[in-house]
């Protein structure tokens, strides 16, 4: 019986292929969406659950969370380390981690932070040791693998968060002291060093940036994004290279001087022309944001209100922001889910037509089978088996293609650090596959109704 059903299916390949393709499309779309949604949520959750609050410069709270916790957006600006630490110096605070960044190496972000950060994300060393002093760094597993970094190698960071190579800090190369084990979090895609390294690199670059401050302003409105800033600066620097040569020399000297004796930094009154982030850098220690974990939720709310009302900084609560983000994304997911539902409907319609047609076309064959002694019920079973087989094949392939899609997606979205896994079907997917089976069932039932009225005598007599 099974064999006959199978033979009948493959004897009409075109009809079968059409129905199967439609079903495959619908199922793969649905599994794809389910998987992306699930893994994205897991990813967001896994990377943000360690902190209750991000304290950073005023701006979009979502942007702050995205940049500081997930490392996918630009930071809102810089804040004063001391001020931030003061706020976080409360008994309700469980732990706090300052982070600072602004540089990259080949597109991978260099994050200045304390060892606590690694501890919080449970990152462990695979090789080497943690960074001890400035310009030592540990790299995430993904980074190490992708750009082939080894312990003891050196690299020069470039300015900004995107790979540009226009502005590199060649004078101050980093030494890799360790490589981290894969954690499945954003740590895998980061290069981590101490805060001081970021400050020292930037002291230099801000000096350089200052040279062309005036030129830069002609070219562009006050910009929020540092890296854009610096690209224009470099260009203009080339244009007016000669005019600034002397001044530059002078300032570089000053800069070297300031390194020897930090107290002299304040002498640089020219820095007041800069926007606040650059200015502050030379006066006080700055960080991009402070990540805080509280002992209880009350602390979160109190501190959040205090920071947002009484200071120049803002406090963003990752949980809320991620919720907001998933609501935004949810609309898109729903749209695609809707599309896959429509396709599912069309697919079951096509299976219905396929079954009805095969019954009509094979009326005589089915009548013949009746003369062979099989009952009407067995004929219905045969038709059912055909429909079921069609659905099963589509379900399996649809699911496989869905997973393949997720895998491809994860390959292309590598830059965001989304690491998708290829797992077994989960409960939601099993439900969906069952739903598909159920939608094809009525199709088979209606189609097989005509079998009950099958007039064997008449069909065989009308030769």
């Amino acid at each position, binding site marked *: 019986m099974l064999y*006959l059903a199978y033979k*009948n299916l493959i004897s009409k390949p075109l009809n079968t292929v059409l129905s199967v393709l439609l079903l495959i499309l619908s199922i793969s779309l649905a599994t794809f969406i389910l998987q992306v949604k699930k893994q994205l949520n897991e990813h967001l959750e896994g990377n943000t659950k360690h902190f209750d609050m991000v304290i950073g410069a005023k701006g979009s709270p979502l942007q702050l969370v995205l940049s500081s916790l997930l490392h996918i957006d630009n930071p809102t600006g810089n804040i004063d380390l001391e001020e931030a630490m003061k706020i976080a110096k409360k008994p309700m605070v469980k732990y706090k981690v300052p982070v600072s960044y602004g540089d990259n190496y080949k597109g991978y972000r260099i994050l200045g932070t304390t060892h606590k950060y690694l501890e919080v994300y449970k990152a462990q060393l695979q090789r080497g040791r943690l960074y001890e002093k400035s310009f030592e760094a540990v790299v995430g597993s993904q980074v190490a693998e992708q750009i082939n970094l080894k312990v003891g190698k050196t690299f020069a960071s470039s300015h900004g968060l995107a790979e540009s190579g226009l502005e590199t800090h060649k004078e101050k190369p980093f030494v890799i002291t360790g490589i981290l084990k894969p954690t499945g979090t954003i740590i895998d895609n980061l290069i981590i060093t101490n805060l001081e390294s970021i400050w020292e690199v930037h002291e230099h670059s801000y000096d350089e940036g200052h040279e062309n401050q005036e030129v830069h302003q002609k070219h562009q409105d006050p910009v929020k994004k540092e890296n854009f800033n610096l690209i224009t600066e470099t260009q203009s620097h080339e244009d007016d290279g000669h005019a600034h040569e002397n001044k530059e020399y002078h300032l570089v000297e000053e800069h070297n001087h300031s390194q020897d004796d930090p107290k002299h930094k304040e002498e640089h009154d020219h820095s007041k022309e800069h926007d606040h982030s650059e200015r502050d850098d030379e006066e006080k220690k700055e960080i991009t944001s402070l990540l805080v974990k509280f002992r209880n939720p009350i602390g979160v709310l109190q501190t959040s209100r205090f920071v947002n009302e009484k200071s120049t900084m803002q406090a963003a609560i990752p949980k809320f922001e991620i919720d907001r983000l998933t609501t935004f994304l949810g609309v898109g997911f729903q749209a695609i889910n809707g599309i896959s539902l429509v396709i599912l409907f069309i697919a079951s319609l096509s299976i219905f037509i396929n079954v009805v047609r095969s019954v009509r076309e094979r009326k005589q064959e089915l009548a013949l*089978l009746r003369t*062979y*002694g099989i009952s009407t019920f067995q004929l219905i079973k045969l038709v059912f088996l055909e429909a079921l087989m069609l659905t099963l094949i589509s379900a399996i392939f649809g699911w496989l293609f869905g997973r393949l899609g997720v895998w491809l997606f994860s390959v292309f979205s590598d830059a965001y650090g989304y690491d998708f896994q290829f797992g077994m079907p989960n409960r939601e997917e099993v439900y969906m596959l069952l739903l598909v089976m159920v939608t094809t069932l009525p199709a088979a039932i209606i189609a097989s109704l005509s079998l009950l009225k099958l007039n064997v005598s008449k069909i*065989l007599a009308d*030769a």
Partner: protein
Amino acid sequence: MIRTASLRYAYKHSEDQNLVFPDIHLSSKESLLILGASGVGKTTLLHLLAGLLPIDTGDVYIGNTHINRLTRGELNHFRGQNIGLIFQKSYFIKSLSVLENLLIREKFSKSKSDRYRREELLMHLGLCDQMHKKVYQLSEGQQQRLSIALGVIHKPKIILADEPTSNLDDINCEIVVSLLKKEAKICNSNLVIITHDQRVKPHFNNHIIL
């Protein structure tokens, strides 16, 4: 053994046409040729004998079984095991090969799969070389011979043939009739042929004209 008594049949949609059939009495191994022009109810009679049409009035006995008394399920089973039907036009399962068609026939009639019987039959009917071909690849004559094979493979008590020769030329007609007679003999079956084809007439002694 086949016995019918006062068999009548009325098609529901045409009440004026009430078919009355003569009583048939065949002892075992006897053959019967039913002749008649088109539209006199030859096929109806055949289908009544095969249990494909419900019997309104009259009785049909095949062997020791009273067909009227069988339930639907019993009738299906009985038909599968004891009746072999051969049609004017050849009906097959088109997605299967010659051999597979025979296998499925055996399977559905719940008779044992008999390899020797299959091979013997294919040899007798000259279909050995076509065994693995798809049925639509066969010629007209070959198809008719396969039809016979499907009608007799399970060694039925009666073989019912509906116009088995009308589409065939003289030579193939001869072949088919002699094959039917031969197979009926091998199976110890009653052979009932209905036809309007006068070429068949000389081969049989027992005639009924409707």
